[in-house]
């Protein structure tokens, strides 16, 4: 590779085939990368005057309007904070009596906060004001303002949801759960944070997210296909590599268990089928189950599979499902 080829690439005068060859060469060796760094910087420094004509006045006007917007929203922020507790309470009472279960998303607007919730077996897709799309799993609740503030996009989640977030570097997207805050710039990820679960799980599919927790000083940065599990009782975070496709399989109505404690399995089944379970043995609660259930399977079919694929037996007891060792 000659310097003149590198310069040709830096100038943007290479075709895609040459481009690929040069990039691969740069990546191959530290010294190659170093040479590129240097030539690139020299080129950028020597071409300060080559940029296109720019209407500075227009850019300055854009800047001014952004600046004013920021100041205005800081003020409305205070008002919104005062209103939220009241609105939240009103919405809570409204949704507690709302009999609609699996309807297409019904958005109810009370001034500025919108709440979306799902019952057991339900699932909803929500598009936020910024274009981000959130898929809500069963027995979950999402709250968000009908207009985001100018500095952040904050939402609150109880339960499980998949987030596909529109990128906006000026406005980080923050998901508040009971014990944890998840901050992102633009990415897709899954959060599972049900009040009755022992853990909060965050799985990143693409992009980058940060986890913030009161008791943990430094934010934790998550990489794609990694899951962070926050243990509510122990207040610690465990990070592991996972198959993110399995984690978000619930979007297609699938339930995938991989060495999952039975205690967690029945919580997930309860959310999907609305059935209550009884497990009397402690060892059975900790039993690790591996298996896949599909969308079109009924609870009976699921229980049959469970029986065949493990040492678990089931029977009905006062409309509840009792699980025992075979």
């Amino acid at each position: 590779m000659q310097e003149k080829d590198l310069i040709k690439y830096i100038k943007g005068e290479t075709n895609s085939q040459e481009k690929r060859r040069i990039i691969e060469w740069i990546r191959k060796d530290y010294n190659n990368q170093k040479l590129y760094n240097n030539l690139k910087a020299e080129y950028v420094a020597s071409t300060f005057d080559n940029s296109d004509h720019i209407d500075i006045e227009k850019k300055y006007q854009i800047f001014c309007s952004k600046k004013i917007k920021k100041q205005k929203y800081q003020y409305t922020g205070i008002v919104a904070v005062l209103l939220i507790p009241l609105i939240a309470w009103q919405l809570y009472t409204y949704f507690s009596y709302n009999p609609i279960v699996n309807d297409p998303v019904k958005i109810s607007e009370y001034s500025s906060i919108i709440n979306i919730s799902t019952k057991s077996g339900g699932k909803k897709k929500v598009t936020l004001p910024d274009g981000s799309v959130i898929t809500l799993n069963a027995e979950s609740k999402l709250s968000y303002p009908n207009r985001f503030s100018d500095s952040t996009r904050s939402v609150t989640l109880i339960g499980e949801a998949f987030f596909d977030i529109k990128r906006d570097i000026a406005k980080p997207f923050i998901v508040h759960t009971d014990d944890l805050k998840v901050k992102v710039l633009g990415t897709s990820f899954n959060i599972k944070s049900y009040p009755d679960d022992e853990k909060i799980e965050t799985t990143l599919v693409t992009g980058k997210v940060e986890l913030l927790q009161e008791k943990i000083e430094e934010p934790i940065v998550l990489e794609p296909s990694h899951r962070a599990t926050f243990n509510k009782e122990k207040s610690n975070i465990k990070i592991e590599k996972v198959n993110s496709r399995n984690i978000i399989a619930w979007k297609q109505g699938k339930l995938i268990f991989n060495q999952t404690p039975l205690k967690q399995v029945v919580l997930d089944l309860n959310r999907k089928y609305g059935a209550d379970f009884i497990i009397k043995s402690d060892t059975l609660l900790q039993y690790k189950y591996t298996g896949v259930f599909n969308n079109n399977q009924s609870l009976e079919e699921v229980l049959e599979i469970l029986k065949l694929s493990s040492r678990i037996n089931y029977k009905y007891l006062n409309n509840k499902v009792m699980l025992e060792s075979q």
Partner: protein
Amino acid sequence: MDKGILITNHYFIKNIQEGNQEAFKVLFDLYYTKLLHVAYSYVPNKEDAEEIVQDVFLKAWKKRKNITTNINGYLFKITKNSCLDYLRSKKYKLSSANNIEQLEAFINHKALKDEQTSLIIEKELAQRIQECIKLLPAKCQKVFIKSRIDGLKNKEISDELDISIKTVENHMSKALKYMRLHLREFLSIL
């Protein structure tokens, strides 16, 4: 003209810190195109580069109280870090293993992060900014520096240079106009 007097001048910095809009506009006029050039050299998309630079000025305005005499280094650093954040997120956006855009984000992230080489750009930027002000006509330049950089009031300038206040005002508006015009010409000729 003392080279060091320009952007690093105590009164000019003080004006910025106190939120003087005119002083900040001078900064915007001087730096916008150049910072955009830096951002667009490493970030592949022009709209994103513009967003980054607009954001740099919003940050600088918001944190103007932290601005010290090294204003050039400060603006360059914010621009550099915003670009690095952008490239990092691009780098991890997986689609296929040998996606060319992703690999490009990868090498450009490394290139911009390299302290040694990015210093070349930072130094050149400082020099270019000084040249921009140097190219003003002598009289205008004197008034401009006394007003915007040294922070003198029009009355004080008129006393010091023994010219009327009206003339000071004329020179000032001419200087600002010339500077903006000049910046544009400067960029469209080449």
